[in-house]
């Protein structure tokens, strides 16, 4: 929020004077303990929705709401940057299954939230953003710290609201909260002009309720269910594809029961990681660009793909021309607009994931005869194992570090990541068995998600669960300032920086597709993260050799507070398998020369 010298003076004024345009009201508002104003109604609506934690940054136009939070039961966590607030709220929502809440002031506060809102939107994460706005009579005048926030965020929110009335602002906030988690989840935003926050009201907000039209029917039409069931029953090579929707729809029990009952192998998408236990014999882990070879072989050869809660992102499908080309596609989704958007659904089934899986199960008179197919999948698993070479004299392999932390933690430990090579290794070499334990930026691919994500996850999770953030050196540096928050709140998170002094995924692509010209991807000016951690007040560790790994893993996990482990990994290591962009899933490369 850096400003030129002159506006900065305004900023100071702004923060001292609650509202230069409504001094009388403002004085009254701050003097009373809990004034009956719009801002108090906003906070009452949040409390009524069951909000316990909110993330944000103070500022001029949002001050009335913060003032109303003063006496509230809601635990407000001040973040170092609004982007951190949005990511923390997002991750909090992923872990708890209820919308995370973030707050920011108008203008730069709101625009700083934008990346986090877009991230939540791409991953269908429930989240409520509240932004301050300049007083209504100044809206549109390019006033100090003004932005057209509803305009800016319209394409990246499920819906947004411009609050125009103090008496109804509480209802609007409740509706936005409820809408965010109804049906297909997504971020919502309420823009709160300062006069509306300050304006008097004596009305308690209505209980949070989404607009009637936004409540989709959980049950699918029985005819579409029967048609899907008939196709599944006669399939010889059936395959379940579980996406993030299985987790967000709290349908993991039904999904697991369905696949096991009918002996159908399972692949997940990356957001679907944790929907099915990766140590189960039926599980082929996740498919897509850096998914397992066996998952991608199964996708390529299935004759009946039962896709639940996935939007067929291009990182999953590669080129759609070659995606599950011989399969009848049964597509289960709560959002009808996802049906046949990227891949044509031969059997569209619109409804809630768990409800529909139960419906299909009930409609199946027999399980498909898939014994041979299961054997084929096992053969692929043996042919294309996830593997890497360990040489004690060489730099540490990042995969080894991920496996070491996995081995040292329980099944319910939560992993958050930034975006890049480290994210892929964290997804590939950690064995996930529970939903809501892999918290990452999937669709938007936001570098810097990991640390604020870990803060949100930590505050959402019970104290006895471990929270481990795998980050890259480049990704960590993008939101490293949030370490101050982790220290201030004494949050027990372990940040493991897989440091290769490269923006590694870019380097990998430059090696593969740009003849090794490492334009702007060498990061050999990186700080020493262990020392930087100590400067913030966190514990710092450094790892250079294999024989240091075990001790540091144990110590960093045992430390009760934030710790940063700077692991200097093999800078040449790349992520494989790899389906080239737009390529066929089954043609994944196992080494660079296969690309």
């Amino acid at each position, binding site marked *: 929020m850096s400003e030129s010298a002159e506006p900065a003076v305004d900023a100071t004024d702004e923060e001292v004077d609650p509202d230069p345009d409504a001094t009388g009201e403002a004085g009254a508002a701050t003097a009373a303990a809990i004034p009956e104003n719009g801002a108090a109604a906003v906070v009452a609506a949040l409390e009524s929705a069951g909000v316990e934690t909110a993330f944000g940054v103070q500022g001029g136009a949002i001050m009335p709401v913060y003032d109303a939070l003063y006496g509230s039961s809601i635990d407000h966590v001040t973040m170092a940057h609004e982007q951190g607030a949005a990511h923390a709220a997002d991750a909090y929502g992923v872990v708890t299954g209820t919308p995370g809440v973030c707050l920011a002031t108008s203008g730069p506060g709101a625009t700083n939230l934008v990346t986090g809102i877009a991230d939540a939107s791409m991953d269908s994460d429930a989240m409520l953003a509240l932004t301050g706005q300049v007083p209504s009579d100044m809206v549109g005048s390019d006033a100090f710290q003004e932005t057209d926030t*509803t*305009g800016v965020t*319209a*394409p990246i929110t*499920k*819906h947004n609201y*411009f609050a125009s009335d103090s008496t109804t602002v509480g209802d609007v906030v409740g509706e936005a909260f409820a*809408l965010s988690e109804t049906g297909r989840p997504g971020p919502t935003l309420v823009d709160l002009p300062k006069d509306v926050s300050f304006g008097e009201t004596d009305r308690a907000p209505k209980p949070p309720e989404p*607009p009637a*039209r*936004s409540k989709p029917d959980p049950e699918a039409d029985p005819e579409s269910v029967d048609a899907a069931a008939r196709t599944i029953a006669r399939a010889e090579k059936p395959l379940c594809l579980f996406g993030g929707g299985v987790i967000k729809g709290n349908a993991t029990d039904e999904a697991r029961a369905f696949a096991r009952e009918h002996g159908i192998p399972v692949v997940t998408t990356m957001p679907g990681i944790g929907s099915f236990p990766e140590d189960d014999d039926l599980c082929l882990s996740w498919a897509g660009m850096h998914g397992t*070879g066996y998952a991608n*072989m199964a996708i*390529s*050869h299935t004759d009946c793909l039962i896709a639940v809660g996935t939007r*067929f992102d291009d990182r999953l*499908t590669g080129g*759609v*021309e*070659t*995606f599950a*080309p*011989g399969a009848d596609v049964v597509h289960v989704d709560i*959002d*009808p*607009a996802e*049906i*046949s*958007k*990227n*891949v*044509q659904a*031969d059997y569209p089934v619109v409804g809630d994931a768990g409800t529909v899986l139960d419906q299909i199960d009930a409609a199946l008179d027999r399980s498909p005869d898939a014994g041979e197919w299961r054997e084929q999948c096992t053969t692929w698993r043996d*042919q*294309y*194992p996830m*593997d890497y070479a360990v040489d004690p004299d060489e730099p540490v392999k990042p995969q080894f570090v991920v496996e070491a932390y996995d081995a040292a933690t329980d099944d319910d430990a939560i992993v958050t990541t930034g975006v890049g090579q480290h994210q892929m290794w964290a997804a590939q070499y950690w064995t996930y068995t529970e939903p809501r334990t892999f918290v990452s930026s999937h669709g938007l691919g936001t570098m810097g998600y990991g640390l604020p994500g870990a803060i949100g996850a930590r505050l959402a999770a019970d104290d006895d669960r471990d929270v481990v953030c795998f980050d890259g050196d480049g990704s960590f540096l993008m939101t490293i300032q949030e370490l101050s928050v982790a220290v201030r709140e004494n949050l027990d998170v372990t940040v493991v920086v897989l440091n290769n002094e490269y923006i590694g995924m870019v380097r990998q692509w430059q090696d593969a597709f740009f003849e090794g010209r490492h334009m702007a991807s060498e990061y050999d000016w990186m700080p020493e993260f262990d020392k930087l951690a100590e400067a913030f007040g966190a514990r710092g560790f450094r790892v250079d050799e294999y024989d240091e790994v075990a001790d540091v893993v144990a110590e960093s996990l045992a430390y009760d507070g934030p710790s940063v482990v700077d692991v200097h990994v093999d800078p040449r290591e790349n992520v*494989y*398998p790899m389906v080239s962009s737009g390529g*066929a899933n*089954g*043609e*994944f*490369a*196992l*080494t660079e020369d*296969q690309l």
Partner: protein
Amino acid sequence: MAGPRPDERPQPTARRNAQGIKVDPDAGAEHRRRTAVISALVEHEPGVLSRVSGLFSRRQFNIESLTVGPTTVEGHARITLVVEETDPGIDQAKKQLLKLTPVIAVGELESDAVRAELVLLKVRGTEPDKVHAITEMYEGRTLDAGPRTITVQITGDERKIDDAVDAFRQFGIIEIARTGQTALERGDSPTTPGEEPGHSAGGSATDEPTDDETTTDESTPNYDD
């Protein structure tokens, strides 16, 4: 990692097309663009038009025309969109529209639906009699006539408007303003699913100045494609 190389692995022979549709060797039809008239019933609130148009621009749908006006139901408005897209594109446009919270219902109009457009034409006033004759021919109205310019209004379907514009060219068109198409389903069929025609219309609602939007009344019987 062992495993066969990509070219040694079994690969499926089937294919999909660029829309993700399984390629049927017998049909092999490609999706051609067609013109569709989509009607959306929406909450009449600030920002709804920008949400709708933003949705179309973000997804690179080509809007031929877009009209908006209130309906007989208080707080509702109708947006009529004409788009040129493939079938999957039109389907996606309708579904995405329906996802917008302020959108109540979305329907695609039948080909025999009543469609109309209004155009204002300002032409040189040197030959008023001939301008008048053409205006009569297209059942238009003269809205303004002066020594140098004549402004006329023509309503009707797109083809009639195109023809009229061509006919007026001989006088030298100075300015032109077209509204784009607006449309309603014929007879008792609701224009958007679930819509109840005449619902809460009351006695006076139809007397409101909405007549300007619903010029269909004047021109319906005359022109059909």
